[in-house]
């Protein structure tokens, strides 16, 4: 059962209000107990990247663009500090998978699809149901083999870095679209050292 957020805020999807949103989140983030410097950075990065992504989304017809951000705390059975989960909601239509938006057709469901390639990593999308996409990051070719710098520079693209960072520092990265309510980026799992694949 989904718990209620411990901190939640929705603002218009414009640059100025998102700056305020990030500043308010910073106050909350720095007050979370049990987080080391890396975890704090990953949360800041997640808020910033989530807001940037939300800002780029076009709201549906006759809708005002908004961005909502919610922090959740979940207890651990071993009594360690609660884990933090994060949801960022925007007014957009969600991820496009092989040219398809939600509801995703059957032909893209149930398999892993390379969504983006960033340097020597790839982001893999799997469509769990017509309204949800799960993302994960993995080394290209399944191993972190060193690549020549020249090759990396020639193939490097400026897009996708933020998404790669999210997939590497959260256990679960989901994009869930709800018709009429927009799309929610759900980040959960320990905010810790990069997830190794």
């Amino acid at each position, binding site marked *: 059962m989904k718990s209620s957020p411990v901190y939640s805020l929705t603002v218009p999807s414009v*640059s100025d209000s998102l700056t305020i949103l990030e500043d308010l989140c910073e106050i909350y983030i720095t007050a979370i107990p049990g987080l080391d410097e890396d975890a704090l*950075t990953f949360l800041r990065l997640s808020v910033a990247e989530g807001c*940037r992504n939300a800002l780029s989304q076009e709201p549906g017809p006759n809708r005002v663009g908004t961005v909502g951000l919610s922090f959740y705390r979940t207890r651990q059975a071993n009594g360690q500090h609660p884990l933090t989960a994060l949801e960022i909601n925007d007014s957009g239509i969600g991820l496009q998978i092989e040219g398809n938006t939600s509801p995703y057709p059957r032909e893209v469901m149930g398999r892993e699809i390379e969504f983006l390639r960033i*340097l020597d990593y790839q982001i893999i999308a799997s469509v769990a149901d017509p309204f949800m996409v799960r993302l994960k990051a993995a080394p290209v070719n399944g191993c972190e083999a060193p690549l020549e710098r020249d090759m990396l*520079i*020639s193939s*490097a693209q*400026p897009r996708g*870095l933020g998404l790669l960072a999210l997939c590497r520092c959260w256990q679960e990265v989901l994009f869930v679209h709800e018709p009429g309510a927009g799309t929610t980026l759900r980040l959960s799992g320990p905010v810790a050292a990069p997830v190794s694949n």
Partner: protein
Amino acid sequence: MPEPKVVGLPGPRIKLDENQGIRQELLDYVSRGNARLVLDFTEVDFVDSSFLGFLIILLKRATASGGDIRLCAMRQPLRSTFDLMRLDRLFPLHETAEEAKHSYGG
């Protein structure tokens, strides 16, 4: 070859859409060809992915015209963000600006 140019990035937080001035300064420099650039992160605590994506564009332009870009003084936890995005594979990192300049050789 020209002397390496050291540019101290304005901190503590850098987002590309809030730093168009530095963006243009860097683009103008690498466009001259054979640009040997050192970006100093001493004052920087946080960088968003749009600025780091811009650095990739800058690196491609610099290397395409015979130049390069080195980075220096990147502290934790910013370094963790950099590694998360795999950018340590693209940009040589140095402790100080002097070390970065020296790495370009004669």
